[in-house]
C-alpha cells in the first residue's frame, strides 16, 4: 500500500493502516526530534504527540500535497513549541538560581534531566535554523520544501539554511583550531 492508500484507510478508521504510517515515520521523526531537542525523553514525548495529532487531523490533510511535508510541519511545530517553553522555564530557573545560589542540589538535578544528546555544536543555532539544517541534511529538502514545513517563504528558508551551515562551519573550524593548539 502506498502512503495515499494508507491515509485513506486511516480515514476509514483502520488502526492497522496508521500503525504502518507510524512504522514508516517513527525513526525519521525521532531523529529530527532528537537533533532539535537534544533530549531522548522529550523527543519520545513529542513523537508520540505528533502521531496523535496527525491521526486526529488526518481529515484536514490535503491528499494532493506530500504527506511527509505535512508530517514534518506538525513535528517541527511541536519541537519549536517545546523549545519556547523550555526557554521560558530556563529563564525562570535562572532567576530562581540567582536567588538561591547556595542551593546546589536543584541545579544538579535539573541539568541531569536535560542531558543533551545532540552535539554542542548545534546549540548555537536558532530553533528554525536547526529545523532547516536537519531537513536539508537528513531528508535532502530544498529551500522551498523547508519553507513549506516551517511556514515561511523559500527565500527565508534558504537564508536560514545558509546561516546554519555557516555557523556550523565556523564552529567546526574553531574547535579544530583549539584542538590542534591544545
Amino acid at each position, binding site marked *: 500500500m502506498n502512503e495515499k492508500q494508507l491515509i485513506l484507510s486511516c480515514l476509514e478508521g483502520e488502526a492497522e493502516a496508521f500503525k504502518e504510517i507510524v512504522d514508516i515515520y517513527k*525513526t525519521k521523526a525521532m*531523529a529530527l526530534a532528537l537533533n532539535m531537542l537534544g533530549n531522548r525523553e522529550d523527543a519520545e514525548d513529542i513523537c508520540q504527540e505528533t502521531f496523535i495529532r496527525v491521526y486526529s487531523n488526518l481529515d484536514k490533510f490535503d491528499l494532493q500535497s506530500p504527506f511527509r511535508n505535512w508530517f514534518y510541519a506538525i513535528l517541527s511545530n511541536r519541537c519549536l513549541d517545546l523549545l519556547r517553553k523550555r526557554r521560558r522555564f530556563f529563564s525562570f530557573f535562572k532567576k530562581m538560581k540567582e536567588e538561591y545560589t547556595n542551593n546546589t542540589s536543584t541545579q544538579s538535578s535539573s541539568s541531569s534531566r536535560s542531558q543533551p544528546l545532540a552535539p554542542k555544536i548545534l546549540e548555537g543555532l536558532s530553533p528554525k535554523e536547526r529545523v532547516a539544517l536537519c531537513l536539508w541534511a537528513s531528508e535532502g529538502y530544498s529551500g522551498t520544501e523547508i519553507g513549506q514545513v516551517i511556514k515561511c517563504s523559500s527565500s527565508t528558508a534558504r537564508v536560514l539554511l*545558509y546561516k546554519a551551515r*555557516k555557523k556550523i562551519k565556523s564552529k567546526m573550524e574553531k574547535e579544530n583550531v583549539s584542538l590542534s593548539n591544545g
Partner: protein
Amino acid sequence: MFRCQMVNFLFSIFPFKIWQDFLLQKHIQNCPACQENLASLEETESLLIQEEEVGGLEDLWPKVKVQLTKEKRKERLFRLPRWGWAVGAAFLLIAIVLGIWFYQLAPPGKTPEEDITSPFQIKYIRIYDKPARTYLFQPKDSNMIIIWAEKNI
C-alpha cells in the same frame, strides 16, 4: 576574493531576507570560495543523529494506540450528532417563543393611580408656595372626606 568579501559584507549589513536570498542566488551558491565557508552535507550529516542511530522505538506504537483509544473515547463522550446543533437551536427557539407567550398572558402590573386599595392620596398641599398643615376628616358612617389645609406659620 574581493568580490566575495563585498558580497558577504552586503549580506551582513542588510537584514532583509529577500536581499540576502538574492545575494545567495547570484553569488554565494555558485562561488567555490564562498562554499568553503559553509558546512558540507557530509560534515553536517556527521554531526546529526541519524535514523540508524535511533533505536528502542518498539513501544512507540503501543503508547500511541493507547492514547488514540483514550482520545476516541473522549470524542465519543463529547461529540454531538450532526443534527445535534439543529435540535439545540430548535429547543432554544421554542423556549424563547414560550417565554414571550407566557409574558403576554400574565396580567400587567398596576400603576399607583389604578390601585383601588387606596381611595385617594395626598402627597402634600402647598399654600403660597409653602407646605401646609393638612388634616383629613371622615365623619362616622359617611363616605364623605373633608380635607382641611392650614397655612404653616
